[in-house]
């Protein structure tokens, strides 16, 4: 029971390295709390992408979620974020 409920998260360290790598200036740093919050943001981004793709597949009566389904929902997903 406990295993099913184990939360899937982006590791704070991964998020930190990821975002820091994209900063334009060397002096820009990322606080620990900001990294944790961004990990939440990313998780929601992925979940939205997954759920919307799944719903698209459902509306097309498809058994598997394929790349065409993701492509259709991608524009709105990016606009919403």
């Amino acid at each position: 029971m406990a295993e099913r409920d184990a939360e899937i998260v982006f590791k704070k360290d991964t998020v930190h390295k990821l975002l820091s790598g994209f900063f334009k200036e060397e002096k820009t740093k990322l606080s620990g709390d900001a990294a944790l919050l961004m990990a939440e943001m990313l998780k929601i981004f992925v979940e939205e992408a997954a759920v919307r793709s799944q719903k698209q597949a459902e509306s097309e009566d498809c058994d598997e979620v394929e790349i065409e389904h993701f492509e259709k929902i991608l524009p709105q997903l990016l606009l919403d974020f």
Partner: protein
Amino acid sequence: MKMSVDKDETLQRLKAAVHYTVGRLCQKTGEDHRREFSRQVIAAIAETTFRQCDIFAKDLEAFARHAKRSTVTTDDVKLVARRSTALSIYIQNKSEELNQEQKDLKKKNTGKRKSRETEEESRE
């Protein structure tokens, strides 16, 4: 020459880490709705998430710079979440949760110290 090789390695490792978590999240969503995600679509979502991080990072940096800070804080993250009301509220709540956790942790440590002091006093 070596430096750029190391950088590529780090990048690949980060991409792999993102791909791994994306895969697990897609698997869970698939289980909840009884529809599997193809490997191609998981890779596409992972790649998109990775690129979205670039956009997020640039925005965060710009917000911090605008506030004349060199460190990105949770205030900047809240701004990044501004486009959707639901998302905004969710991030705001998570931020408060984090603050509360830290306060509770501090209180726990101060409490331990205080009770130890009173113990020593009563012994004297």
